[in-house]
């Protein structure tokens, strides 16, 4: 398996990162090298091994079913949430037009 420029452009597009042809050509051998090194994992026999899902055994908790159970993560924070928006109007985030 090798990573070529076309693959890099495809990955960049999936990751929503704009990339020039020049950069894609430069990055391809780098990624190829790293992924080639990662390939060695294939030699490990993992049959019958469960993939790890939790590194330290823990149980999922349920919080009390009340509104704003935690004041920091509760609601009513529109202005705080909007305070770092690059662009907002009337209490909404604004983006370029998406529907013609």
């Amino acid at each position, binding site marked *: 398996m090798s*990573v070529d420029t076309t*693959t*890099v452009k495809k*990955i*960049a*597009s*999936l*990751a*929503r*990162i*704009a*990339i020039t042809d020049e950069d894609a050509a430069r*990055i391809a051998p*780098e*990624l190829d*090298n*790293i*992924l080639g*090194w*990662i390939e*060695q*994992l*294939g030699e*490990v026999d*993992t049959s019958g*091994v*469960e*993939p*790890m*899902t*939790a*590194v*330290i055994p*823990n149980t*999922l*908790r349920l*919080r009390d079913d009340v509104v704003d159970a*935690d004041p*920091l*993560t509760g609601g009513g924070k529109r202005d*705080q*949430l909007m*305070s*770092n*928006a*690059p*662009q907002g109007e009337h209490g909404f*985030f604004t*983006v*370029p*037009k*998406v529907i013609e």
Partner: protein
Amino acid sequence: MMTDLTDLGIAAIRDGVRAGSFSAVEVADAFVVKVARAKALNAFLVETPNHALAAAKDADAARAAGEVLKPLAGVPIGMKDLFCTAGVPTTAGSDILAGFTPTYDSTISQNLWDAGAGMLGKLNMDQFAMGSSNETSAFGNVISPWRRSGGSNADLAPGGSSGGSAVAVSARLCPGATGTDTGGSIRQPAAFTGISGIKPTYGRCSRWGTIAFASSLDQAGPMARDVRDCAIMLAAMAGFDAKDATSLKLDVPKWEHGLSSNLNGLRVGIPKEYRIDGTPEEIDALWQRGIDWLRDAGAEIVDVSLPHTKYALPAYYIIAPAEASSNLARYDGVRYGLRDLPEGAGLQDMYAATRADGFGEEVKRRIMIGTYVLSAGFYDAYFTQASKIRTLIARDFERAFEQCDVILTPTAPSAAFALGEKSDDPLAMYMNDVFTVPSSLAGLPAMSVPGGLDKHGLPLGLHLIGRPLDEQGVLNAGLAIEERAGFVARPEAWW
């Protein structure tokens, strides 16, 4: 002549303020001056002298009123810029968070303020904590205060990703600093700069309000001058937090109270797989000295095997980028941070332009690796396989801990290298974490303590790994090494 207060560590400051030997404001003032004069190190991204002074005034007022002082009353600290701090810009070392000023504090920073600590400033770091040399920050390299002996003026890497934290503590700009560790980001910079740092068991420290890199691995921890200071600061940072689904609902042990360097009956495991070809002789020699020191403290040395060690680093470079590619999807130019909207561009173009401009090279590289290994057709071959290998690595440790109580290894495969020396070769850079990544994958507590100097006069660290939740065992073995290593070297101020 009065003691230079910036020579004091956390315990000495806390005790001195309590005893009235000096005021908390005197301490804060002394560090504020040091920070302001150390611009050449580029350790601080934002200086917050008023925050430190306000906490100090509170400590002095509490003492004057005869109140019981808080655990960190009068102690000013540095805060890695990965932690959200209310009203203080937080960037994670990245342009994509330009202009972002959190309206809330992370649980870790809030816990520290609640314990009485004040903040001297926000510390530079590898962008999104991705790096081992602090060369990926959008705001310039952090320069190690250490120089090779023999008149070399080459700027050295402080290690990463918590490079600013390591430098600030090592150059005496603050007595302690927060770090975060995903694959070694507390321990490797601590080793490079001759300080101590501990990554607790995954789940001890809340991740809420800490900018995410790889959520199944990220853990906060303290970086400080010695083991006792780490124990004190970790106790203030740790604790259950309902806002983090993986936070452990456990009481915080009294680690400082439990410190003991008497290791009678303790079994220390030496994993044979950590003897890697090409490791400098000095690292092996240091490791042997560490073994001798622990034996001298009463421990029994046993050989152990961690057979899947060689697969830890490649597994990490699937798991961490995969999680990062998902976590960093939130930076879209809509809700916070940078927005790049080219003339006439639509929404998708805005996302792509914003992320191309805002993320640094290493961050993009890891997002792309993560995107690739998670993409249709590759998920099982890469991500599932890596997750299975992670299970095997954790099992290796479980089996080793049937024969021993704590494991000793070197922290890093070399002393600090020069800035620029490895930045063109991602794989060579990744190798820095070869000794620290396995314990991260297994979620175990682990710490680096200074062990000695290499032939160029640069610090080398020893690394202790413990059972889940056994921070005490790690700290105690660290203390035994600290007492025997007698590490007093410090960088000569050139900045």
